């Protein structure tokens, strides 16, 4: 199918697709979970066909615990299933009684269940175990960028 793009067979581990059973039943058995903390698991995660061992909704291997942060997407599509988020904050300088702007970038893993995420979207990420050298967060929810004019002519 479309999701077998790698050299090894991609499947959810622990879910046995018994070739003897598929008579009248639907095609593939899919496993998904509720990540907790009030986050709704997307419909695309339940009904989709993608295989992602780092997806918080369809993989038993990653759990969301620790910090939940939000940020603005500044880079998407350059790395496979990973995005860069920018988090801005104000730092106080006591001598001048004033603030300065600072920011930190954060790499987060984005599951294929989030489709159509663009630069500028606000995203909520949850902490999980290290997934790669710099990725310790997983995207849990996406809020689209609010365009003031509401006439979204973006591409086309």
């Amino acid at each position, binding site marked *: 199918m479309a999701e*077998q793009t*790698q*050299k*090894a*067979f991609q*499947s959810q581990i622990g879910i*046995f*697709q*018994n*070739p*003897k*059973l598929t008579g009248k039943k639907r095609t593939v058995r899919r496993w998904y979970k509720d990540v907790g903390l009030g986050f709704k698991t997307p419909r695309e995660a339940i009904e989709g066909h993608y295989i992602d061992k780092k997806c918080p909704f369809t993989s038993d291997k990653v759990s969301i615990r620790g910090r939940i942060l939000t940020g603005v997407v500044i880079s998407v599509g350059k790395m496979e299933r990973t995005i860069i988020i920018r988090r801005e904050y104000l730092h106080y300088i006591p001598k001048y009684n004033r603030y300065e702007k600072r920011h930190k970038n954060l*790499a987060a893993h984005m599951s294929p269940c989030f489709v159509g995420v663009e630069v500028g979207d606000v995203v909520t990420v949850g902490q999980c175990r290290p997934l790669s*050298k*710099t990725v310790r967060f997983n995207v849990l929810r996406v809020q689209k960028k609010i365009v003031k004019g509401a006439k979204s002519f973006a591409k086309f």
Partner: protein
Amino acid sequence: MGISRDSRHKRAHTGAKRAQYRKKRKFELGRQAANTKIGAKRIHTVRVRGGNIKFRALRLDTGNFSWGSEASTRKARIIRVVYNASNNELVRTNTLVKGAIIEIDAAPFRQWYESHYAIPIGRRAQKTGAEATAEDPLNKKRSNHVLRKIESRKEQSKVDQALADQFAAGRVLARISSRPGQSGRADGYILEGKELDFYVRRLKARKA
């Protein structure tokens, strides 16, 4: 020992080069790979952190393989490595690792199937006279109770054609699901269904 698993020698996320401020520590050690080959069993034990033991298999010839859809697990001989998604070198050198696709001896599974369902699988069509001995699992004498059980299993006995062809050749494709360099065993499962189609297609493409 020169292999270490630390990340202090790597550049930071920002790209900055990190200065070395301490020597390598024992808790970040790495060891030589096992590179388990096929042959008479040879397993070395390693004492690891906490006093625990790991079994480094250097040579293995058998493994415990399970036939998922029939829920039957048998010890089978490993014949050769056929495909490895990560590295073709590991196929050439017949190295057993987790995730490698291998050929195993089909005999234990065929014996189980024939005694469980009393239906031949992968049998060559001729030689009718010589096979009709009492020992043959197909023809041996069974009690009434056992015969009734076999009748009730009849409709579940259908095996996928791709798998049945492998039985005819006496070799079945399986995938190793244990880590021979850690546990000392090469256990796995027989490929079936979509997974089997996937790898059969890969193998055919390689041969062509």
